[in-house]
């Protein structure tokens, strides 16, 4: 079926990849991070809610043609075409030279990769730079189906410990590891994003495990351009209210601590950057 479930299309997006981008938030996610700031994107169907007395919906089905049209509305702002060498970059300094484009986020974008592949092919014809933000918790075939159509990956890294991954996210870490390996072999440029959430991911054990994992990767792979540490925030709390769900409770990590975590991660050999949001 040619339909893609989208919760939001955010144009003039400046924080989801190089240049000026359109970020497409796809609905449906295979994990449920306790700190999630996009709870409306977890459930893979349209959600109704009431805003100031008006009935509204989160989610809309798009045909690939309509979605493509929306993405191409800002084609001129993406400022440039994707070039062959753009998906072979090995240096993080080159990121800022890439053209803008589209970023598929979520939820988990790869869950809809089959339906999305039509749009991706069309975008390739228009030479639009394509990025995906993924948790990698998706069937490997989904990744394989689209990996060659994607120019840039933002990959979440939360846990590498199987038990914690299962208990806190409801995810199978083996899926993650398998997909990670596939992605590494694809040689596509990757930025790893680690959410630093107090009480969930910021403990020494977890950071140590993530760091060891990345050290191993660093020995054999050079397509990871940098590691980004994302501070937790409560900007999505209003969405929980609208959905009638309980807001996640966690304190914000202080700057000093996140800098320390950054230093530990940097020991893996990758350049590390602390992002505010």
């Amino acid at each position, binding site marked *: 079926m040619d339909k893609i479930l989208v919760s939001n299309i*955010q*144009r*003039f997006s*400046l924080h989801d990849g190089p*240049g*000026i981008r359109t970020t497409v938030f796809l609905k449906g996610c295979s994990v449920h991070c306790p700190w999630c700031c996009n709870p409306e994107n977890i459930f893979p169907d349209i959600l109704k809610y009431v*805003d*100031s*007395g*008006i009935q509204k919906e989160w989610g809309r089905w798009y045909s690939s043609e309509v979605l493509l049209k929306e993405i191409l*509305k*800002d084609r*001129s*702002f993406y*400022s440039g075409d994707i070039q062959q060498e753009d998906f072979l970059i090995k240096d993080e300094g080159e990121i*800022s030279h890439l053209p*803008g484009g589209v970023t598929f986020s979520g939820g988990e974008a790869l869950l809809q990769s089959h339906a999305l592949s039509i749009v991706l092919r069309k975008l390739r014809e228009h030479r639009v730079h394509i990025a995906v933000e993924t948790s990698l918790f998706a069937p490997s075939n989904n990744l394989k189906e689209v990996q060659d159509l994607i120019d840039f990956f933002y990959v979440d890294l939360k846990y590498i410990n199987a038990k914690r991954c299962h208990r806190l996210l409801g995810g199978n870490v083996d899926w993650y590891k398998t997909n990670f390996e596939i992605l590494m072999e694809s040689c596509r440029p990757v930025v790893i994003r680690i959410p630093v959430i107090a009480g969930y991911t910021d403990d020494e054990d977890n950071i140590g495990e993530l760091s060891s994992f990345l050290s191993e990767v660093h020995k054999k792979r050079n397509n990871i351009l940098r590691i980004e540490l994302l501070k937790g925030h409560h900007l999505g709390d209003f969405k929980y209210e609208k959905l009638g769900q309980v807001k996640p409770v966690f304190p914000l990590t202080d700057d000093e601590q996140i800098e320390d975590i950054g230093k530990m991660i940097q020991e893996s050999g990758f350049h590390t950057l602390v992002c505010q949001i």
Partner: protein
Amino acid sequence: MGRLKTFIKNDLWHVNYIIPFTAKYLQYGKIGYLKRALPVITKVRVIKGKGKRDVSTDILELMKRIHLGVIEGSSFFYWIDEYKTIAVKGNVLSNFCIDYGRLVNSTFNEIAGKAIGVGGIYGERAKNIKKAVNVLRDRVIETMQTECNDTNRSQLTILEMNNLLDKPAAHLHEGLQRILFFNQYMWQTRHGLNGLGRLDLILGDLYQKDLKAGIINKESAYAMILDFMNTLNHWYVFKSSSILGDIGQIVILGGLNPDGTYFSNELTYLFIKAQAESKKPDPKTFLRVSNNMPQELMEVAVEALKSKTGSPLFSNDEVVIPQLTQFGFTKEEACSYCVSACWEPFIPGRSLDQNNIKAFDFFRPLDSALTNADLSKIKTFDEVVSLYENALRTEWKTFLKELDSYIWACDPFVSMLTDGCNESRKDISQGGARYNNYGVTSIGMGSVVDSLFNIKKLVYEDCRFSLEELNNMRNHNYKNQDSVYTVLQRSNKSYAHDDQDVEDFVNRIIGLSNSVVKKYRNPLGGKVKFGLSSPFYIRDAKHVPGDFAGRKDGSPYSTHISCLDAPYTEVVNFAGSLDYSGNAFNGNVVDFFVSPSFIESNKDKFVQFMRAAGQIGYFQMQMNVMDSKTLIDAKAHPEKYPGLIVRVWGFSAYFNDLPEDYKDVLIERAIESEGAA
């Protein structure tokens, strides 16, 4: 009301001179107005010339009688006696700029001589103006000799004044001084909203010459320009037109040459930087941009936005110039365009063009059509549109007829600086200039478009109300209809969104307007131009009933080309899709709110955005770089923010000087834009 205004303007000329001195206080209410205006009114004196009454003899006498003084700390001479003026029949030309290039690079005596040579009353008046300028020049010299303690400064001014009449300016400082001298003359003789023109072009050769000769370096030139800008900021209240800050001293920078190359020079950069550093709302800068402008210049302009003075305003030559040529200006004239006080393209030295004489309201015809028609008989949306279009044609015709009543004050000085007047032996006020067009601005386009699209959905697609029901609720200002009002208020807006149906519809309204407007000729034989941005989106909306898109009775219209629920790229795409051809190019400004932190942390991407936006084809763009938190706090605690500057319509002003309703609109827009961004 219109007749009363015309009567005051045309027939009460012996006393109406007082209006420009007091109009800026109208914002303070009746008591506030009287409190502020009375002390001014009692001090202002009209100067009359000897012999038979004439504007030129009045001006000659005025120049003899004004008080002159010396501004401390400036290297320039500049003084305005705000309490001596002239009374003259008709509207004094304003909202434009004279061709300073002629005065800097040629000589005043030569210019005046040509006008005197015309003979007759025209020549006689020119002779008096020549005398008046001579008197002013001599009195400046005298003032510097007696009142300036700084000998070097005094000698420099005297040298520059000695050259003023019969030598072209020889140095950058002299060029700047000459512009100030004639700018002073303009303000003193009641011209308002005096633009400054393309100063980088006018002064570029003098700058290069001085640089080569080692007379100046980049740093001293910068200091000189900063001094020039600060000097012009004096008499801020006197110069303000309808609101404090509405001054119109706009410096035009950069721009396409007739051969398609882009003009800019080091002065372009220096003026942008000096304006930003001055941290003052006026003078302001206006950058003519093009696809082939230097990247560095756009970067400097974006950097200047961070100074939060509202400058520069960006004008897209790729779109503006073709519209000027298709209208009838030559390529060379089109490429020399400046603007009236805000954004209306104006060709200096060639035209009378009075570009902001009235505002057309696009929403009023919808209001009147729905009030006068039997709505129960309207069965389709197409019928509603047709009803609107008929009312729109009628409204335009009535509106244009009212423009016939304007008469202009005799202006021998501006005439001698404007092509066509000597040749036709006619004063500019009598249609002597090569071009004699009028310009009008417009309001309410967003309101009518959003209203019609809401009517289409709610009445004809969802069938939630009948047109009659909805209009009744509107007529009662949605009293006891909170839920319906909320639906209308929170409905997604259509205007300024890049939706093909919306774009087509707006172009249809523009096209229809063009079809009526293009037939009009004013009494001087000129045409009329219109644009989609206007200063009057608050003032003129105060007596207009509510719409169908969340605007209640008397509430402001949206600002220029803007909307509160679309990202910047979408608004630019929309602006780029509009048809500015025909007569629809009298300023079309996209107006954005941008938070300071947004520009601070995304400067490179913002530059990218501006370049791409230019290619898409917006007409003009201005930005308020401000966050809502600051504005809210400033409204509550004005004492904490004496220097807070905001962009209002086409000018910048101190936030504390604004009427409360203007403050509220700015706060509301800042909040909404933060949500959308």
